[in-house]
């Protein structure tokens, strides 16, 4: 898959950790789909209601250091179980970032001003975001406005997304 698109949700907090994304008490699940109902269950964010706010969402936009803490790949799995395959942030924690690409999902890094612009647009209108891996462009539709933002993926990150994940890539190459 090289185009990811859908409705975007903005989470206005830095340092959202993987315990908040998927609490440890659910790590006894070995079936990824069982994680779905518990996404962001413990997230500390004023006004956030996971049941309501995550419904129909395909893209997350958030602040610095997203996915810090535990290495649990259950975090991207819980996102995917809810149909979310793209996260956009100014920075990510290392293990979470790598886990996203290893799963063939997309973690897009944008600078602070561009992230602020997305938050401002979202405050006024529902946000729809489409990310194209081949052209390295995200297209944002917010009410009557449409604008495009470039992003950069390394050759490796692109290759992982195009292969569908690290197991597929490694199997072909090593």
């Amino acid at each position, binding site marked *: 898959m090289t185009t990811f698109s859908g409705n975007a949700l903005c989470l206005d907090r830095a340092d959202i*950790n993987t315990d908040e994304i998927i609490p440890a008490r659910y*790590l006894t699940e*070995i079936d990824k789909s069982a994680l779905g109902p518990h996404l962001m269950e413990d997230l500390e964010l004023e006004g956030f209601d996971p049941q309501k706010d995550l419904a129909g969402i395909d893209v997350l936009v958030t602040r610095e250091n997203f996915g810090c803490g535990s290495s649990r790949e259950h975090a991207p799995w819980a996102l995917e179980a809810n149909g979310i395959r793209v996260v956009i942030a100014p920075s990510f924690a*290392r293990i979470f970032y790598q886990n996203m690409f290893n799963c063939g999902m997309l973690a897009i890094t944008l600078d602070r001003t561009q992230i602020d612009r997305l938050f401002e647009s979202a405050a006024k209108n529902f946000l729809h975001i489409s990310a194209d891996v081949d052209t390295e462009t995200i297209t944002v539709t917010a009410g009557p406005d449409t604008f495009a933002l470039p992003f950069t993926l390394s050759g490796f990150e692109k290759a992982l997304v195009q292969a569908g994940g690290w197991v597929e890539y490694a199997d072909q190459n090593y």
Partner: protein
Amino acid sequence: MGKTIAEKIFDDHRVDQPFAGVNVLRLDRVFCHEITTPTAIQDLVARGKDRVFDPGKIKAVIDHVTPAKDSKTALQGKILRDWARRHGIIDFFDIGRNGVCHALFPEKGFVRPGFVIIMGDSHTCTHGAFGAFAAGVGTTDLEVGILKGVCAFKQPDTLKIEITGALQPGVFAKDVILEVIRRITVNGATNQVIEFCGPVVDAMSMEARMTLSNMAVEAGATSGICRPDAVTVAYLWPFIKDEYTDHKAALADFSRYLPDEDAVYAGHEIMDVTDLVPLTTFGYKPDHVKPVSDMAGTPVDQVYIGSCTNGRIQDLRVAAQVVAGKKIADSVRAIVSPATPDVFSQAMEEGLIKIFMDAGFCVTNPTCGACLGMSNGVLASGEVAAATTNRNFNGRMGKGGMVHLMSPATAAATALSGTIANASLFSDPA
């Protein structure tokens, strides 16, 4: 141009560089536990690739929830156990021989300077204490590691953290690493390796170095590496004595991973710990750190001494020294979880278990348990814990609970008081 420890290890292990800055490294160790490995095993089976690259290099343990608390955790253990058996993974530590992975594996001599080690666990950085490049990864990286014996890493920069001066009585490695995290913040070393060095680190035991390296990930670091030296050799000697003529020969070999004089670092922090006081966390981030004295009097409901950060014998000795002959406060419950069976045995032999029990502690089997709120002392909503663990995230030890991280000495003193308190080791060392 000179190289850092990580650069030397990468050079030694690089099998491919498929893209600029991406290094596929051959693995010396793939460590496995029952929470993050079963999904990898099942995926390999589903793909018709139920193989392992080298059973001798794979070490596995059931540690996070043990003994099994329900049928789900029992199944996780069973998947790991069945897999270890069918692939001849001899070093699989089942119930009775099992302990917290990052305490057990070093204890068994599985870590060497210069090794590349991965595990599906963020505190894998602990093994950097031996001068290894040891990094936490997710289940998919673990799966490829198991199958192919390789893992891909971006070339990391290294942040040199030089620790100078000398620790006062009652101030320990846990306080040092809390101060490091406070200074550089939770995002301070993302995509970097931290090299810990300086006279204070040189003077530390391997256990204290493991406490330092263990929490490198809380500052975002890929690994926390200490220079291999005579202390490293002495710790590993029982396991390497047939490979080298003497300690000097081992040290000479390990020294090829020492950083060059002209190695290039992304940053160099010098931290004088002469005036460092015992520290604890407040709030929900490991970089929210204050002196214990500033938090003194904060009531706690539970004290937890254990974990891969501070559950080893030296940690238990200090805690026992604080509580010996005394009783914990009526308002608090205290749990001590020796990190491995050998730590438990040693503690028994030294009379520490009796000291803890006489003081009113609950002494449990080795397990990760409460550290991540899965078992062995989960908090109720609204409760407060003082713990020697490594994360105080919201809900970490139980939904709605609060955790204050601290050293074993401070945790023991807090158990006696029922409120956050400095140990007399610090406040009255005479």
